[in-house]
C-alpha cells in the first residue's frame, strides 16, 4: 500500500513541468464538463461533446501551428488573415465543385505554407522580430483579401466549400461524431509524432532552448525556423478549410477570434511562451478548455460582459494553480 503510494508520487515528480501542465489542463477540461453537466445533463451527452470537440478542433488546428512556432520561441500573429485568405481562396477557386476539390485543397494548404515560409524568410534573413513580421503579414493578407476580392464583391466570392470538403469536416461517419474530429485526431498524432520521434522535432526543441548552442551543434537554424513558420501557415490554412467547410462559406474576419485563442490554448496547455518546453497534447487540452469554458458560460446565460470577465478570471486561476514558473535563483 505504502510502496504503491510512493511510486505514484514518484511518477508525478518525474513528470516535467510542461507534462504536469498538460495533465492538469485535461483535469480542468473534465471539471468544466462536470460543471456544465450539473446545470444541464444534456451537456455531457456524446453528441454534445462531439459538437464541442469539433468547435475546439478549429482552435486546435490553429494551435498546432502556433505550438510549433512558440516551441522555437517565436509567435505567429498572422494567423487570422492567413486563415481567412486561405478560406477565401478555397471557395473562390473551387467554386463549390467537388471536381475541383482534389487540387484546390492541396493548393490552399501549400499556399498557406508558402505564406508562413515568407514569415520565416523575413525572420531568418532580415532579423525581423517575429511579432513584427507576422503582424505585418497579417495586415498584408488582410489588405490582399479585401483588395483582390474588391471587399468581397468578386463574382466568385459567393461560392461555397465543395460538398466533399464539407462532408469531410461536418459529416458524421462514425458514432454520430463529426468527421472533423477524425481530422483533428490525425493531425494530433502526426504533430505528436513529429515533435517526439523525428529529427525535426529534436531540432525544434534544441532551437527553442538555446539557438546559439543548437547552431553550434550543427542544427540548421534557418531551415528549422523556416519550416516551423511554414507549418504555422499550413495549419492556419487547414483551419481555414475546416472552418469554411463547417460554415459552408468564407466570410471576412472569420479568423479574428483565433489569434488570442490559439496563443492562450498553447500556453494553457503548459507550453512555455519562451520556447523549448511543451507539446501539442497540452495545446489540445487548452483548445478544448477554452471552447468548453465558453460553452459552459453560455449555458448559464451570463451576459457578454460577464462571460468575458469570467473567461479571463478562470484562465488566470487555472494558470495560478499549475502554470507558475519556477522561482529564479
Amino acid at each position, binding site marked *: 500500500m505504502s510502496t504503491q503510494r510512493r511510486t505514484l508520487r514518484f511518477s508525478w515528480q518525474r513528470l516535467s513541468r510542461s507534462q504536469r501542465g498538460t495533465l492538469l489542463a485535461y483535469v480542468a477540461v473534465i471539471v468544466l464538463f462536470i460543471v*456544465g453537466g450539473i446545470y*444541464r445533463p*444534456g*451537456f455531457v*451527452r456524446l*453528441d*454534445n461533446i462531439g*459538437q*464541442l470537440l*469539433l*468547435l475546439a478542433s*478549429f482552435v486546435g488546428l490553429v494551435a498546432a501551428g502556433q505550438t510549433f512556432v512558440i516551441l522555437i520561441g517565436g509567435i505567429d500573429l498572422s494567423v487570422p488573415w492567413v486563415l481567412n485568405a486561405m478560406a477565401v481562396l478555397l471557395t473562390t477557386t473551387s467554386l463549390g465543385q467537388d471536381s475541383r476539390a482534389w487540387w484546390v485543397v492541396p493548393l490552399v494548404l501549400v499556399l498557406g505554407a508558402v505564406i508562413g515560409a515568407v514569415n520565416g524568410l523575413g525572420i531568418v534573413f532580415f532579423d525581423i522580430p517575429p511579432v513584427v513580421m507576422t503582424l505585418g503579414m497579417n495586415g498584408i493578407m488582410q489588405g490582399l483579401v*479585401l483588395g483582390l476580392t*474588391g*471587399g*468581397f*464583391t468578386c*463574382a466568385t*466570392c*459567393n*461560392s*461555397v466549400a465543395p460538398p466533399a470538403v464539407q462532408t469531410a469536416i*461536418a459529416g458524421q461517419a462514425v458514432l454520430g461524431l463529426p468527421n472533423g474530429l477524425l481530422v483533428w485526431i490525425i493531425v494530433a498524432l502526426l504533430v505528436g509524432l513529429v515533435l517526439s520521434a523525428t529529427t525535426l522535432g529534436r531540432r525544434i526543441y534544441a532551437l527553442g532552448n538555446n539557438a546559439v548552442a543548437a547552431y553550434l551543434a550543427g542544427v540548421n537554424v534557418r531551415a528549422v525556423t523556416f519550416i516551423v513558420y511554414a507549418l504555422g501557415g499550413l495549419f492556419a490554412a487547414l483551419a481555414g478549410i475546416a*472552418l469554411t467547410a*463547417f*460554415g*459552408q*462559406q468564407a*466570410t*471576412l*474576419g*472569420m479568423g479574428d*477570434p483565433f489569434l488570442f485563442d490559439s496563443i492562450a490554448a498553447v500556453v494553457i496547455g503548459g507550453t512555455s511562451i519562451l520556447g523549448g518546453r511543451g507539446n501539442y497534447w497540452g495545446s489540445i487540452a487548452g483548445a478544448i478548455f477554452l*471552447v468548453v469554458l*465558453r*460553452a459552459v458560460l*453560455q*449555458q448559464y*446565460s451570463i*451576459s*457578454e*460582459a460577464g462571460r468575458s470577465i469570467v473567461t479571463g478570471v478562470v484562465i488566470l486561476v487555472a494558470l495560478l494553480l499549475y502554470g507558475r514558473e519556477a522561482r529564479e535563483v
Partner: protein
Amino acid sequence: SRPGSSQQQKAAHGAPYSIALSNSFIGNTWRVEMENEFKGACAMPPYSQLIKCSVYNSGNDVTKQTQQIDNLISSHVDAIVLNAASPTGLNGVIQQACNAGILVVSYDNVVTAPCALKVNTDQYKFGQQLAQFLVDNLQGKGNVIMVTGVAGTDVDQQRNAGADAVFKANPGIKVIARYTGMWASDVAERNTAAQLPSLEKIDGVWCQGGTDGVIRAILAAHRPLPKAISGEAENGFRQYMLQYRSQGLKAMSIGQPPFLVLVSLELATQVLQGKHAKADITIPFPYVTTDTVKEGETTFKDQSSSFFADFTDSGPNAVVSVCVEMATQGKPCPGTLTVKLP
C-alpha cells in the same frame, strides 16, 4: 489657418459637390453592398453630373476614421456621408467638420453628435417587431432562443431592448438561451452549435444577424426546425424560408437596408442644393415573411447566403429601386436614379 471656422454651410458654390463616403468596417456583405450602391449611384444620373464621389474605409478603428475625416476636412469636401465605427467616438472630429462648414450625414451606425444629420431605421422597433412575430406565431407560448449582436453597440442594445419589452409582456414565452452571434453567420453557427445539444425543445428563434448560421447549426444537429424564426435579411435565411415554408415554418426577415446610404446621399445632395431642410430621416424597414418571400425579387438563389436580399426597396411607395448588379458589383443601373425622401 483653420479652414472655415464658421458654423454655416460652406457650399454656397454650385455643382459639382464633392461628397465622401467614410465607412468604418468593410468586413461583411452588408457593408460591401452598401458601398457598391454608393459607387453605383455616383456613376448614375443625376449624381454623375452633380457629385464628385470618393470612398474611404477605416476598419473598426475609431482613431483611423477620425484621422480620415480630418484629412477630408483638409481636403475641403462639401459633405461626408458617414457610417461610423462608433456612435460616440467620432463626435469630436464631426464637430470639427461641422465647424469647417462640412455637412455630415450619418446613417446605419448613427453618431450622437448633434450637428450631424441622421438617416436610419428604428432599431428598437426592429427588435420589437421580430419578437412580436414570434409571440403571434407561437400563440404566446414557447421556448425561444435569442441570438444577439455585437455587445457594446447601440444597435445591439436597442434591438435587445425592443425584444425584451415584448417578451416581458408575454410571460408564456420563455427565453431559454441568449448568446451573441456577433452579426456574423459563422460565429452564430459556432455558438449555436456549442449551445444546442443541451437545450430542450426550441419553438422560436429571435436573431439579430447571422440567422442562416443559426438554422444551419440546428439542421446539422438533426434537430427539428423551430416553428417560428425571426431574423435578419440574409439571403441564406430567405432561401431557408422558401425551402421550409411548405413544412409549416413561419418566419420573418427584416433587414437594415443597405440603401440607407442612398437616402443619405440624396439628403446630402438636396441639403447642399438648398432643396431640403437639415432634418433627420427615419425610413421604414423592408421586410418579408414566409408568406411573401419570392425568388428573384426578395431572395436570390445564385447569390451567397450572406448576401443581403433587401438591397433595394420594392412596391409602389419604394424609397428607392436599384438593380442587383449595383449591389453586387457597384455598377450603375440603366436609367436615372430616384430616391424618394419621406
